[in-house]
């Protein structure tokens, strides 16, 4: 919704100055993209004082820019890779940097950020704000494990700097963790310090096809053998574009380590593996990333490793077999498709009874607003979440649905 007399647009133009980017969203909402954290702070401080609601967007390729707001604050103007320090394996990048641009900038310096989140051309800020990790989380951990700090602008315009450019840091409370995966509820992330790795010396992918439960058994056998693959991903027939389920194993490390792990995987289970060429492996993992955005809604279900079968059954029972992937080493199931709020809510309630959190990763606003990204959490946690939101957004300026209405 935009101001009918254009007063918000005029105020915003005055705030961002001649270098600030301003456009209008499809729904007529003014979209402002400052090029500095200070510019973002000015916009948010004004919005908070005026009672304007603000929606935060990155490239708009993951969560659509459809939340009701008087203005959109975009990271589009924050597109600089500020610093890549290869010797320290640290990079500082603005939040609007596109993930492909980041990969190229890091590769030029012989470094790599081990995050293969679903989606295409997503901004770094989106990856951090939503904490959407991909198959590599089995071996390398979640987004939080690859961050050293960040700069965030709160809803009323405070610029806060957490963490730093060093590999270990316990000075003060770890508010980077709070901001990561909170869908922007605690402020606008303007830049992040990334923990990098050297580009791997060797990178191999093995795949096999079979019935779902047989492949879950193969995955468990690999883990029981003491192997921790970089990725251990189960794909439904739709997700893998095959007639049967697919298990993809990715091994990353030195040449000797990868060859040893390849032999260990073969010895640990009875599957017949296909070893993919570099090009086919790249295509395989890219397809896994991109299929998550072919439908309007994506959710993730957390569970223990031995609970994966039950988690997938819950998804299949309450939703459908659209696109399902499961990171076996991490205990996470991702589903992408179309479903009503009622069905998703039923799934969430059933999953909660068996201690499985369901997060709405992306969906149209009416569904996000109804269900919330997290829904109602556990006793005690809801109060904390409410207190923290009030701490960082006392005027409820940011339109982010964490708990939802149900």
């Amino acid at each position: 919704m935009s101001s009918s007399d254009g007063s918000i647009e005029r105020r915003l133009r005055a705030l961002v100055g001649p270098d600030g980017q301003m456009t209008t969203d499809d729904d007529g909402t003014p979209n402002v993209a400052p090029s500095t954290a200070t510019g973002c702070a000015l916009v948010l401080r004004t919005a908070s004082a005026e009672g304007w609601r603000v929606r935060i967007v990155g490239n708009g390729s993951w969560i659509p820019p459809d939340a009701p707001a008087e203005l959109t604050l975009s990271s589009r103007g924050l597109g600089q890779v500020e610093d890549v320090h290869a010797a320290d394996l640290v990079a500082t990048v603005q939040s609007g940097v596109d993930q492909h641009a980041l990969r190229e900038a890091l590769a030029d310096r012989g470094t790599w950020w081990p995050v293969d989140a679903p989606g295409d051309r997503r901004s770094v800020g989106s990856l951090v704000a939503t904490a959407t990790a991909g198959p590599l989380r089995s071996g390398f951990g979640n987004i939080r494990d690859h961050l050293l700090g960040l700069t965030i602008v709160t809803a009323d315009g405070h610029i806060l700097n957490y963490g730093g450019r060093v590999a270990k840091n316990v000075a003060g409370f770890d508010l980077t963790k709070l901001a990561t995966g909170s869908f922007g509820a605690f402020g606008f992330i303007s830049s992040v310090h990334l923990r990098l790795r050297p580009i791997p010396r060797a990178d191999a992918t093995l795949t096999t096809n079979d019935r779902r439960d047989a492949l879950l058994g193969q995955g468990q056998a690999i883990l029981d053998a003491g192997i921790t693959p970089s990725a251990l991903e189960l794909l439904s027939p739709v997700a893998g574009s095959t007639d049967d389920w697919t298990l993809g194993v990715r091994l990353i490390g030195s040449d000797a380590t990868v060859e040893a792990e390849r032999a260990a995987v073969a010895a640990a289970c009875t599957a017949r593996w296909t070893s993919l060429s570099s090009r086919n492996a790249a295509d395989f993992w890219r397809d896994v990333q991109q299929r998550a955005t072919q439908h309007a809604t994506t959710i993730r279900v957390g569970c223990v490793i031995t609970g994966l079968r039950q988690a997938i059954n819950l998804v299949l029972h309450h939703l459908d077999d659209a696109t399902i992937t499961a990171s076996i080493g991490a205990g996470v199931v991702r589903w992408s498709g179309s479903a009503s709020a009622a069905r998703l809510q039923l799934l969430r309630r059933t999953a909660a009874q068996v201690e499985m959190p369901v997060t709405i990763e992306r969906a149209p606003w009416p569904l996000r607003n109804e269900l919330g990204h997290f829904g109602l959490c556990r006793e005690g946690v809801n109060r904390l979440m409410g207190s923290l939101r009030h701490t960082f957004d006392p005027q409820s300026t940011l339109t982010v649905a964490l708990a939802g209405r149900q």
Partner: protein
Amino acid sequence: MTLPKQVLQALAGIVGSQSIRVSRTALETYASDGLPTHHRRPGAVVLPDGRDQVVRIVEVLAHHGVPFVARGAGTGLSGGALAGPDAVVIVLTRLNRIIAIDPSNRHATVEPGVVNVHLSEAAAPHGLHYAPDPSSQTVCTIGGNVAENAGGPHCLKYGVTSNHILELEVVLPNGEVATLGSRGGEPWGPDLVGLFVGSEGMFGIATRITVRLTPIPRQIQTLLADFSSVRAAGEAVSSIIASGLLPSALEMLDRACVAAVEASIYAAGYPTDAEAVLLVDVDGRDAGAVQAEAHDVETILREHGARTVRMATEESQRARLWQGRKKAFGALGRISPDLIVQDAVVPRSALPDVLERIADIAATYRVKVSNVFHAGDGNLHPNINFDRRNRDEFRRVEAASAAIMSACIDAGGSITGEHGVGIDKLRYMPLMFDGDTLAAMRATRRAFDPEELSNPGKVVPVHACREWSAARSLRRAEVVA
């Protein structure tokens, strides 16, 4: 004693008279942690035997507005577990049950008083271990590790405590119990586990902790390299990390530290004429792969001027080399009445310059500084030997510590990598954070603990915080109304 009598009676009613300490002599035990420069005697100490007693204790203290401080084994190095006479120390060492080990899901659930190494010993029959290994792991507790986000030598490859905590049952400062995270590791809402770990006991008390377990590496090779300059050793560290190799540990000891170790019962055979030695662990599942990586590490070490490189594959050889490193603080403790183990982090590439700067500072202030640290992480531990009875020397030690912190911050580093802020580093926090960021930290703490009863006076220097918006907005609303 300043605690109200009815509070002490209520506490005794919960834990029994045998599990409460109020005498001056008994309280002295809890007046310090592993850092000798701070001393505060608490008003009382209680030793609960389970979660329910912790809840009831916290409820009583919250009701009476009495501050409290949770404490594990007392091995902290920042004064974080100290309490004043108006506060109660809640000692958690009796909550020491390993509740469950789930090898298929690679996790374990423990109470906070479980000793770090005991968990790894219990998981070992399943081929698993708890990876964070602070030097005090034979005595420090998992609860303390959570509070401080403890590290250790092998965190270079396996990550620090926060990378290994999946779920926490916590008693909030009002006595309410909340479960954060999930056993699978997926957050249930915002990442409150990540926020809680490292909060130094200021958000509440963890009473049940589910941790990730990691396969025990089947093959380990330990390399010992010695150098004729600290700079050359530091440059070798940067080259190893940048090469794509990932040792599980990469530690450095300087000449002064080597001398102390070799003169002690922990003598490990380090060359005493070297300016620096590097201790490197390479591990994995496959002997051939580990050997190949160890060879690559050796090549880099020699390219950077290592005088000798020794390889140890036998467990007894490895244990001896590591004993020298793990017990270095004990060895240093022999040579003076007091020892400060400092903690700071710098970018790895800055190590050579910062180490030279620390040597200059030691000369300027005429103090004895030795270094033993996690070089692969850039996590320095400058140690200062002194005698606190010598007031002039103590003043110089304090000034040198401050100068070392400033040097690390100037190099783009942090005032602490694994020991925490506690009370020892409160004064340095404004050097790292502006008033708004400090205010945000305090406001975050107040979301958990509005009355600021849980471990008050630590981590965030209140005087340096700017006014926070939530309070400001409330006042503005009042004016408008």
